[in-house]
Structures are given as C-alpha cells and as structure tokens.
C-alpha cells in the first residue's frame, strides 16, 4: 500500500509502472526524406516531456506516429500495453478515444460548430455524451477564458481556437496528452494560464504530457526535454 505513490492509475499496478508509451527504433521515410531514423522514446505515467527541434525536423510527424494517426512507419510502438502495429483499427480508435488527448498544431476544429460542440463531438459520435461531460467541458472552457456560446469556431481568433483545441483534448480525461505547439498562437499570459490549468488537472487527474514546445518559460516546467535532431531524440537537461 505504501508503494502506491502514483495515484490515479486506478488499476492497482506496481509503482514501477510500465510506460504509457514506448517506442523504439522508429523509422519514418517520406519518399526520399528520412525524417525519423531509429528514434526511441518512452513516456511514463504522470510525466511531462517536452520535445523541441528545428522547424521541419519531424516533431509533428513523431507525434502523429505516437498518437497512432500514422501507421506507415517501421519500428516498435507500444501504447498502454498494446503493440500498435498489430492492433486493429477498432483498437487504435479506442486508444485514441479513451487513452489519448490531442492538441494538433493546426487545431483541426470543425469550423461550423461552436466551441462546446467541437469539444463534445467525439463523445457524441462515440455515444458517450452525458451531462457530466458537458459540465466538465463548460468548466474547462471557462478556465481557459473562452465564451461558451454558439459562435462557430471559424469566427474565433487563432488563439481562441487554439484554446478550444486544448479544451477538446482535455475533456475526455486522457491518460496521455499529445500537444503540438499548444501555445504557438497564445500571448504569454494565456500560455501561462494554459499550463497552470494543465498542471492543476495533472495533479487532479494524473495524466502524462508529451508536448512540442519552444517557449523557454514553459520548457522549464517539463520533467524532461528531448531534442529531435537527425531523426533521433536527444535528452537535454533543463
């Protein structure tokens, strides 16, 4: 019992917990371009890992692979104990829905839907929409200083849209948050606000974060910083 340092796993697993995500020797090639060259990566429970690297080096590509959106790679990838190259599309969909939250670099919101509807969309389509989910969504929206009205997101400012994207990723109560430059369009205050919220939710719910980040101030909050260079990840010390 005294070993139960990491709360919120809710599964009574050993504290020397198995990694949430484990990737090894990932190779990703676009036509002639080898973006990832035997990259390896591990994300443990509750961890906040930041990924940096020059533009075009392959950070988004890496996140796409880790998020099971891109199956076209070689190497090993295990997520929540599931070896993804062998998993069915049903299993992968379930992983993305139940286990992961995404903040995409391009947000990927549906422009005709309001912030709340965008956030609820995955739950509605999975048949898990409930009053509880709605309350949670409304709370997160207000924590991120977003209006909860019917304005379609195509009318929102870029920064507002980015925050809606963050809210959507959080509402499903993921175990892993994959965030691709989640503060790229935010001012410093909003940036701090988002990560304050993430920290608070992390304490409350205990999820891990892998985020592509550039901002020095936010990088300092990370447990580990990895730099993607030459197709592999290098550990950097804050």
């Amino acid at each position, binding site marked *: 019992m005294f070993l139960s340092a990491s709360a919120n796993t809710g599964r009574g697993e050993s504290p020397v917990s198995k990694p949430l995500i484990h990737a090894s020797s990932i190779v990703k090639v676009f036509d002639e371009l080898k973006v990832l060259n035997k990259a390896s990566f591990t994300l443990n429970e509750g961890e906040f890992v930041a990924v940096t690297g020059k533009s075009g080096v392959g950070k988004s590509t890496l996140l*796409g692979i880790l*998020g099971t*959106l*891109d*199956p*076209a790679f070689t190497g090993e990838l295990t997520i929540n104990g599931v070896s993804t190259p062998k998993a069915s*599309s*049903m299993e992968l*969909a*379930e*992983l*993305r*829905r*139940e286990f*992961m939250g*995404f903040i*995409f670099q*391009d947000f*990927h*919101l*549906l*422009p*005709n*839907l309001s912030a709340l*509807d965008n956030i*609820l*969309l*995955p739950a*509605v*389509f*999975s*048949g898990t*929409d409930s009053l509880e989910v709605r309350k949670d969504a409304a709370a997160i929206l207000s924590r991120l200083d977003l209006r909860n009205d019917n304005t*379609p997101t195509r009318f929102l400012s870029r920064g507002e849209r980015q925050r809606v994207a963050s809210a*959507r990723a959080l509402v499903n109560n993921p175990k892993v948050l994959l965030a691709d430059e989640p503060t790229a369009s935010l001012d410093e205050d909003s940036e701090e606000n988002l990560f304050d919220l993430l920290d608070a939710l992390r304490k409350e719910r205990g999820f891990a974060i892998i985020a592509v980040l550039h901002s020095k101030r936010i990088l300092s909050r990370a447990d580990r910083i990895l730099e993607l260079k030459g197709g592999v990840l290098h550990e950097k010390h804050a």
Partner: protein
Amino acid sequence: MKNTRKAISLWNRGHWKDYVFSQGMLLVASLLLVFFISIGLGVGNILERFLSSDLPEEQVRITPQGVQAGFFQTERGGTEITADVMDSLTALPQVERIDPQVYAHVPAYLRGLLGGRNYYTDITLEGVSTAFVPDSMLEYIDWNYTLSDSAEKPLPIILSENLLILYNAGFAESNGLMGLTPEGVIGLEVQVNVGSSSIASLQAPPINLRAEIVGTSRSMALFALAVPIEFVEEVNNLYLPDDKHTYSALMVTALEAEDVPAIVRYAESMGLAAETRRGIAQKAEVLVGVVTAALGALAAAILFSAVASAIHTLVADLKNRSYALGVLVALGTKRERLVYIFAFQIFFMSLISTVFGGLLGCALSFLVSSTLLNLLPVLKYAVESLAVFPVGWLASGLGLVLAVSTISAWFFFRKILSTPVTELLRR
C-alpha cells in the same frame, strides 16, 4: 439513438445545403422513373387496345387492297372480291367455310335520340352473316331481316366501337352528354335511313327503318353498321340493280388454325389483303415494341444521367467532408460507427427524396394523363387513364434508384474512410 440524432445534426450543421443538389437530382430521377413507367405502360395499353382484334384464330378476313369504307359508298381499287374470287377460295382444301360481307352501295344515315338530343351520322351499311356475330349474341337476337320485316321488327345492327368512340369524343363531348359504353348502347332504338344521306340521294325514294343496336364490334370500318347480309343484298338490288355484285370482305374460316398462313398467301397472291388475329397481334406487338423501346431508351438515358449526377454530387459532398471525417477518426471515432451513422443518414435522406419524387411522378403522370385525355377525348373511351400505376414495378424501380445511390455513396464513403488519417487531415 439520441446520440445518433445529435451526431447527425452536428455533422450536418452548416452543410445541409450541400445535399440540396444531390437529393434534388435523386428526386428528379425518381419522378422521371415513375412518370416513364406509368405513362409508358399506359401508352402501351392504348396501342394494344386500338390494335387488338376480336378475330378468331382460325379466321382470315380478306378485303380488297386499299379499300376504305367511305361515307356512303365503297371506293374501289385493286382486285375486287367477285363471285369468281370467292369460288376459287372456296375450292382451297384448307377452307372450311366462307362468310361474305357486302357493302350497301347506297347512301344511308343513322339517326337517334341520344341523351335527349338528335344524333345524326352518315354511315355505310355492311352486310354480314351470322358468322360475324358472336355466338353469345346469337342466343338472344335474330340475325335475319328483309325489308318485308320492317313493320314487325327492328333492323338488328352492330355498331363499330370506333364509331362509339367518335360519338363520345365529338357529339357527346360538345353537347355535354354522357359518353356511351359498348354495353350501354345495346338495346337502343335508332332510325336507319337507306337511300339518302347528307351528301347524296338516289332516284328511288329513301326508306326509313326502325333499328335496334344489338352489339358492338372492333373489327369494322369506322362508319360501318353491320346488318344482316340478305338485307344489304336486297337494298343493293333495289337501288342499283345493274351494279356488279362484289363483296366488301370475306371471312374465311380455316379447317385448322395452322392452315391460316396458306390461305393468307393465296389471298395475297391474288392481290387481296388478308388479316389474321396473329397478323394483327404481330403488328400490334411490333408497334408497341418499337414505341416501348424508343421510350424506354430515352427514359433509361435520362434516368441514368439523373441517377449518375445524383451519385456524383453525393460523392463529391462526401469528399468535401473528408477533412471533417479525418478529425472524427483522429479523435477516436470508430470507422464502423461513422459508416453506420452516415449510411443511415444517406439512406434516410435518399428514401425521402425517392418517395417524394415517386409521389411527384405519380402526380405528374396523372396530370399529363388527364390533360392529354382532355385534349384528345377519343382516348377517353379507349382507356380510363393514360397513367397506370403498377405498384410493384414502381416500388422496385424506386427501390433500385434508392439502392444504387445509397450503395454507391456507402461504397465511396468507405473508400474515404480507408484513407490514412494523416491524409484526410491535410486540407
């Protein structure tokens, strides 16, 4: 279910107008399908009705080539059917009997009080034997009549059904009278005047006769009245004693139905026209076939392009949404669930379009039918309506349109969903 409704409503927000064109095309396709089937079959019915014959299978009706029944006298042309011709036909081994028909070469008219109004029409009397009269009719009528009978009994007459149609469309229509049915005229008493008509009269004084309509027939010239043959021969002798005796037609009965072609060949070799049930049926079949094929090809072409463009736009609509689909899949929506939801939506929308289009098609063919019948009242007495609604055919046609569009949309939808998510997310 509630979630499915909500999902469909979220998915389509701001996109309902995308469906207007594809569903509109589907509606038009269904409308055309119903219209073509309904009117096409109706036209087929009319043709068959006009071309059908009540000639028995083993009979051949032989007439002079190109001879038409005029108003008061036959116009003669080509070989005439003389006694010699009749004798040579009688001599054929395949012939069982011959019943001649004779035109009265005498002007005549018919007058009657129909619907309280005086109806008058010039006619040609055609003398026929009992062979022409259906057995069912012979049971209750007496097909024997000479001028000496005129005091005791009415002249039995058989009306051409076409004359009835003409009466209905012309006189009845313009005087606001009820139309007459073939059954309804039986028993009507009219007057037949022999020896004069509206445009001709002869030296000898005309005779006025009481007449009774005993039946109707489809195999008669338009303005002909069939009357007992002895009566016509008597009238011809009375008014035109010097005229050469010829027949207007011969009803030749073959021993067997198989003998009919031989008789036809013989008659044709003599320069006469021969009509058989099969010949008429074949003519009708060819005509109906040609009309049906032409209409069918046209209908198929129009229908095909309507369905094709409906599917094309349906697919284009889906392609336009591939980004949104990518978002849903990226966020962990099962593809199976998406397929289920959208197949349901497309099916449901298309169902509404096809049913509604089908109903509009029914309404349109009904409208076209009643307009045509009003413009061409002749048709009104041949058929009740030009539009027929064979429910089974219509339902399966609409079902096919529905299935083809839904299945192809479903197929393309699955194809979009099998694209890698990263591709779909690339706008």
